[in-house]
């Protein structure tokens, strides 16, 4: 028998140092967690009820590969109304298994072997593995707290080589909570056009911004057809387990992505698709309610960290804060390990999201105020202890 059946590409994916920490968390009892990147609200009842109704009626067959046309029409309308985007339901939108599949499809459809993919960091963990599996070469572009973790045009331009093909734009950002505003995007778009790049804009947190409305880079002049807009239902409508997302872009790319989707997935879950139609038609009040609730928690948590004497820039999107723990004198991983052992609080080391996440921790505020307060008291006590020891 061969020594191994697993190919070298898969073997090369993500060193699993962080995995050990995850396993310890999973086995521990009575943990107060701020570790989850998932909403705490149940899916709005009217949406769940639609899912039940669809099941009762036995509407459980496949849909067309690209997804129900009715749903694509609602997505098209939603993107137009919310962000001023103009993507046709018929041939410029594909419904996917969460935004995650859309990221994979986009990379596999666009990349040739050796093409470089620029990925601002810290960011969500799946861009680089998807790029590698698609034959591409991921190139990390670090961002810093000095620019509120926004990718700048200068940093982008510095990272570009003749092999660069794709820029991933993960904003509003997990784990930092950073957003990009119109002037940031305009500067980036200029560089993107100059070097003839394609943007994969992961906008899964687009409905969760606070005090600032989300702007999609695809809405800027000349960007509509060189951007793949990726979004979904998990975060805005609290529908993570329904596994439903979508991609919108120029017809050639979407046709390619739909082809890959057709051969690997066939079509996205039918029940979820019908529920998503209901979410887009009648769910905006629920989105607003959840956004308001997150906003309260956000202010509470930022205030809490600052009171502990930690530097914590104000995140304007998603549901994470990314405080700096540099002043405590521990590495991110040490901090998280000891916080877990000594105070039973689970947070994620910034390094899980890229090397430049060193010195930071990601805390989710998708939790009740009571839970947040409990966690903050424990973290505060831990930091005090560390400082006394140091």
């Amino acid at each position, binding site marked *: 028998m061969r020594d191994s059946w697993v190919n070298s590409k898969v073997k090369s994916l993500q060193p699993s140092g962080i995995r050990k920490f*995850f396993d310890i*968390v*999973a086995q*521990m009892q009575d*943990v107060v*967690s701020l*570790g*989850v*990147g*998932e909403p*705490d609200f*149940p899916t709005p009842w009217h949406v769940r009820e639609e899912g039940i109704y669809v099941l009762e009626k036995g509407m459980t067959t496949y849909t067309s590969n690209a997804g129900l046309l009715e749903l694509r029409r609602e997505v098209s309308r939603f993107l137009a109304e919310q962000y001023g985007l103009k993507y046709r339901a018929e041939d410029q939108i594909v419904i996917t298994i969460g935004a995650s599949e859309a990221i994979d499809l986009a990379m596999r459809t666009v990349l040739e072997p050796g093409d470089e993919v620029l990925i601002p960091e810290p960011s*969500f*963990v799946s861009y680089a593995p998807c790029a590698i599996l698609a034959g591409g070469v991921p190139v990390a572009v670090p961002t810093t707290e000095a620019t509120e973790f926004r990718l700048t045009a200068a940093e982008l331009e510095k990272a570009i080589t003749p092999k660069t093909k794709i820029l991933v734009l993960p904003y509003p950002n*997990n784990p930092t909570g950073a957003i990009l505003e119109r002037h940031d995007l305009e500067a980036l778009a200029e560089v993107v056009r100059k070097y003839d790049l394609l943007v994969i804009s992961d906008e899964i947190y687009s409905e969760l911004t606070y005090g600032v409305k989300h702007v999609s880079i695809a809405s800027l002049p000349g960007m509509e057809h060189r951007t793949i807009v990726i979004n979904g239902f998990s975060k805005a409508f609290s529908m993570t387990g329904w596994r439903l997302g979508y991609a919108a872009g120029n017809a050639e790319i979407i046709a390619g992505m739909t082809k890959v989707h057709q051969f690997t997935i066939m079509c996205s879950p039918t029940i979820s698709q019908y529920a998503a139609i209901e979410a887009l038609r009648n769910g905006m009040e629920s989105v607003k309610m959840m956004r308001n609730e997150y906003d*309260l*928690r956000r*202010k*509470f948590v930022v*205030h*809490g960290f600052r009171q502990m004497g930690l530097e914590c820039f104000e995140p304007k999107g998603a549901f994470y804060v990314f405080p700096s723990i540099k002043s405590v004198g521990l590495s991110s991983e040490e901090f998280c390990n000891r916080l877990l052992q000594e105070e039973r609080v*689970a947070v*994620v080391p910034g390094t*899980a*999201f890229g090397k430049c996440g060193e010195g930071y921790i990601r805390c989710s505020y998708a939790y009740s*105020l009571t839970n947040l*307060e409990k966690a903050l008291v424990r973290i505060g006590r831990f930091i005090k202890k560390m400082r006394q020891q140091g």
Partner: protein
Amino acid sequence: MERKLLEILEHNSRISAKQLAAVLEISEAEVGELMAKLEHERIILGYHTVIDWEKANRELVTALIEVKVTPQRGLGFDKIAERIYQYPEVTSVFLMSGGFDLTVIIEGKTMKDVAMFVSQKLAPMEGVLSCATHFVLKKYKQEGFVFGPETQDQRAAIWL
């Protein structure tokens, strides 16, 4: 600001001044002042607790009474509503559109208590034309709270 404060308090009146100060981005002293003002203006009428009395083993009967009345010249329904809501066992009184005039919600220790109230106090009251009493059999949800165990957080402790 006031509106936001009220919306938060409506669902959780036990939230601490410290938490309120953080989420509203004002000082604790300002929170205190604002609440005192709202109480003084009778915008905040009070703070109460939603209790599952059945679980606490206390006998309690709740009834909803549909009341038809004759409105009084110059006073409309207000005078008669006031005469009804003054009884401590009456927990709510609403003026209704439709087939009857007032919804009166009453709590008593036993069904007999409620029946006595209706037959001896409410029905004979001047201006009351008729009463239809409906007893509550089971409470599922009250003021936004569902009776029964709390739903558990099913999420993993950590997820990227």
